[in-house]
C-alpha cells in the first residue's frame, strides 16, 4: 500500500490487518508514536490520519491507501517545534513523557478543528488520553496556552 507519512511517500508490503502503530514503529522506524494498550484505551499511539486524530493501534494498514499520516515527528522538531510543543516545553508538562506524543497529537487535532476551545471542549477532546504520571493539570494549561499562541 502507498501513502504519505509526514509528507514523505511510503510504500510498504505488510499484512492488511497490521496496525499503523507497528508499521510506523517497526517498519518505518518512527518510534515517537507509542504502544500503550493496543485497544484504544490509552491514546499513546494517537496520530493524524487525513488531518484528524486517530488511534494508530486501531488503524489498519489495509485502509491506508492514499492516506496522509502525520506523526509527532512530523508535527515539529526540537529545532522547530509546533506551538503546542512549545507550550508543552514551557509548561514542563512531561514527567515520564511516554503518553505525551499522543497527548500532543490529540490536542493538535482539536486545535486544528477548533482554534479557541473552551475548557469543557479541551477536556472532552483529551479525556481518552491516559497519563499514568498524572500531568493533567499541565496538559490542560498547555493546550489553553497553545490555543492563545496560535491566535485562537
Amino acid at each position, binding site marked *: 500500500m502507498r501513502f504519505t507519512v509526514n509528507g514523505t511517500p511510503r510504500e510498504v508490503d505488510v499484512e492488511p490487518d497490521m496496525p499503523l502503530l507497528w508499521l510506523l514503529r*517497526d517498519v518505518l522506524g518512527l518510534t515517537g508514536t507509542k504502544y*500503550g494498550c493496543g485497544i484504544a484505551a490509552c491514546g499513546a499511539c494517537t496520530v493524524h490520519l487525513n488531518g484528524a486524530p486517530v488511534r494508530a493501534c486501531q488503524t489498519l494498514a489495509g485502509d491506508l491507501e492514499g492516506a496522509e499520516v502525520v506523526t509527532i515527528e512530523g508535527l515539529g522538531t526540537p529545532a522547530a517545534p509546533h506551538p503546542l510543543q512549545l507550550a508543552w516545553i514551557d509548561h514542563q508538562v512531561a514527567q515520564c513523557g511516554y503518553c505525551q506524543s499522543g497527548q500532543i497529537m490529540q490536542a493538535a487535532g482539536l486545535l486544528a478543528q477548533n482554534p479557541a476551545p473552551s475548557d469543557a471542549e479541551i477536556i472532552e477532546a483529551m479525556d481518552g488520553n491516559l497519563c499514568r504520571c498524572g500531568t493533567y493539570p499541565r496538559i490542560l494549561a498547555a493546550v489553553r496556552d497553545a490555543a492563545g499562541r496560535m491566535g485562537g
Partner: protein
Amino acid sequence: MGRLKTIARRSFLIGTVALAGGVVFGTYAYRRDPDNPLLDDLAEGQAAITPHVLIDTEGVTLITPRADKGQGTVSLQAMLLAEELDVDPYAIRTDFGPPSAAYWNGVVLAEGLPFADAGDGTLARGSRKAGEVLGKILGMQITGGSSSAADAFDRLRQAGAVARETLKAAAAARTGLAQADLKTESGAVVLPDGTRVAYPDLIPDLAGVEPVQVDSLRDPSQWRFLGHPHRRLDIVAKSTGTQAYGIDLTVEGMVFAAVHRLPDPPDETARHDTAPALAMRGVVAAGVIGANAYAIADNTWRAMQAAQAIRTEGMAAMAPRPGAMPDQSEIWDRIAASLDGTRRDSRNRDLGDIDAALSQGEVLTAEYRVPFLAHAALEPLNATVRITADRADIWAGTQVPIVARDKVARLTGLPKASVHVHNQMMGGSFGRRLEDDFILVAVEIARRVTGRAVKVTWTREADFAADFPRPAAMARGRGRVEGGQVVAYDLDIAAQSTMESQVGRMGMPVFGPDKAIVAGAADQPFAIPAYRVTGHRVPAMVPVSSWRSVGASANGVFHDCWLDELIHAAGADPVAERLRLCDDPLSRKVIEAVAEMADWQGAQPGPDGAGLMRGRGVAFCRSFGVPTAAIVDLSDTGAGLRIDRAFVAAEVGRVLDPVNFENQVAGGVVFGLGHAMNCELTYAGGVPEQANFDSYEGMRLRQCPQITVRGLENGDRVRGIGEPPVPVAMAALANAVFAATGRRIRELPLSRHVDFV
C-alpha cells in the same frame, strides 16, 4: 551506555567517590579500586578519578546513576553536579553509567523500601548473616524509596566541587598562576586576564595533578539552578517525540519478540503447540517460558500475533492444584484470618494502656480493606538483549542494575564482568522495575537466537498478568472518644510481606518483621493517650512488590481514615483534632499549611451556589520521612461525585527543583485519587481479571481536580517527594466522600460503592 565505553578509552575522569564515609582521591588508588566502574577500558597513562564526571575532547558527560522513571532524577542529578562544577547543564551530556557498587544508595536503607526493615531488625539482633545481607544491600545501586534527592544532595555537589577544583589545579599547573586566582564559569577555567580555558583543553594537564580535596560546598544563596525554577533536561525531547525509551531502541541486526501471557499458568503436564505460531509470516522462533508464551519475528506485531497463537494442550483439568494461587474471595478470607493474633509481625506503636482504655465506655469498631494494585506503567515491560558466546548486553530500564547483572550472569553462566547492563529512560515504573523478571525472560528468549539482539516487548495484557502488585490488605480499628476528643486508637493491619516476597526474589535471605506491613500507620506523629498499631503477616499467596509509596499506600488510608472516623464520632473538627493530637512540629506545620491553603472552615461547608452537596476531607501521613497533608473537596452532582480541588502541603527540607516538585506532587495526587476511585486487581485462576486500561482506568482528565501544592522547608534534611503525596490523596478522598455523602466507605476502590463523574 554504549557511548560511555567509547568515551572512557580516551577520557579523564574527574571528581570524587565517597565510600564508607570518606573521600578517596588519587589516580593510583583508583586504578586499583575495583569499585570504580569507569576504569574499564582506560588505557595506561590515563587518569581515572571519579564515577560522576567524565571529560573528553567533546565535552563533559555527567554520570547520573539513579534510574529515571519520569520523576526527573537525571535532570536533578545533573543540576547537583553542574551547580558546583560550573558547567552549563544544557550543554553537557548525561549517562546512567554502568552498574556499580560505587553508585550505592546510602539513603534507601534508612527509610525507603522494605529493605530498610530487614536492616533494622537484623542489626538489632546482631546477626552475622544480617551483616552479609546489609553489606550486599549497601553496595547496591537502587533507585527507589523516594531516596534519590536525599542521597545525591551532598554526594553529587561534592563530586562537582572536587572536579572543579582539580580542573583549576590543572590550569594553575599549566599557566604557573596561583590556583586561588583562578575562577570557573560555564565549562571553562577563567584566568585573571579573562582568558578562558575550556575544561576539555585541560585534559593533558590533568595527568600531573592530584585531585583537590574540597572542604565546603557553595551556600544555597549562590545557586543558579537548584531551588529556582529551571527547565528539566529531558523536556524538549519529551515534548517532541524524540526521547528514546527502552521500547524504542534499535540495535544493529535486531529482531523483535513479544511476550503474551498464557491464559492459565501451565502445569508440568502441559504441551505447547507452537506450529501455528511458527507458520506465521516473519516468525523465526516461538515457545513458552513459565507462564509466558513468546515468539520472535521480524516486527513486534507479527511476534505478538504469533505469541498469541501458541496453544497449550494436555493440561490437567482446571481444578485448583496444590500451591496454586487462591482466587480473590479465598484471598480475602486468608487476609481476614491473619488478623486472629497468631500471625503477629510487629507492634511498633504501643502508647498508654489500650486494653484498659477500651474496657470502658462505648468502643467504636470498623473494618477496612484495600485491593491489589497494578503498577501498569504506560511503557509496557520490555528489554533488549544480545547474548554471544562471551558476553551479554542488556538494554532495559531497571531500578536495580546490579541485581539484574548478577542474575543474568547466573542464568547464562557468564562472568559478571561480561554482562553489560545499559540502563534506559523509562516510561513510568511506579516500582515495577525494581523487579528483574522481564529481563530474565528476555535473556532466555535471546538465547534462542544467540548473537542477535532481540527487543522483547510484553503485550499490555501480559504486563498486567506478570505484575507483582501492591498487596491487598485489611485493617480493623477499635477506638473510643470522650469529651470531644479521641482518647483511644487501636489498629490491626494484615498484609502479605512485600519485603519477604521482593527481597526473596532477589535471592537474599530476609529477617525480622516487615515494616512495610505497618509503614504509614505505626510511625505516625500522634500522641493519642492510648494508641496501638499491630501488624500481622498474611501467608504468601500472590507475589507482591513495592508500589509507589509501598506500605503507606494502604496503611496511610487505614490509619488516617480510622482516625477521621473517630474524630467525627467525637464531634471534633478534623483539622483541629489532628493538630491537637500531633506531637511533631514539622508535621503540625504541614497540617496548618494545608488548612490555610484550603481556607478550611470544617468538613461540611454545605451546598454550593448550585445546590450541590459538598464535602471536604483532610488527611495526614508521614511516609519516607516526609510529613504530608492533603485536603480534597468533593461535590455530589447527582450524576456522580466530582473531585473539585485538592490541596497538598509536604515538608521536604529543601525544594531543589520547584517545577518538578509541583509536578511530582500533583502527579502523586492524581495517582492516589485515580487508584482510590476505580482501580483494583482481583485474582482468578492465578492471574488478575483486569488486563488492560479499560478495566483498570485510573484518573482521566475530566476527573482531575484543580491541585494546589506547597513545599515546606522547615526540616534540616533534603527529602524526596515521589511517593509521599499518594497515601494522603487516597485517604483525603475517602474522608471527603464521607463528608459529602454521610457514607463511610471502608473499601477501595470507592467505585465499588459510589459513582464518580
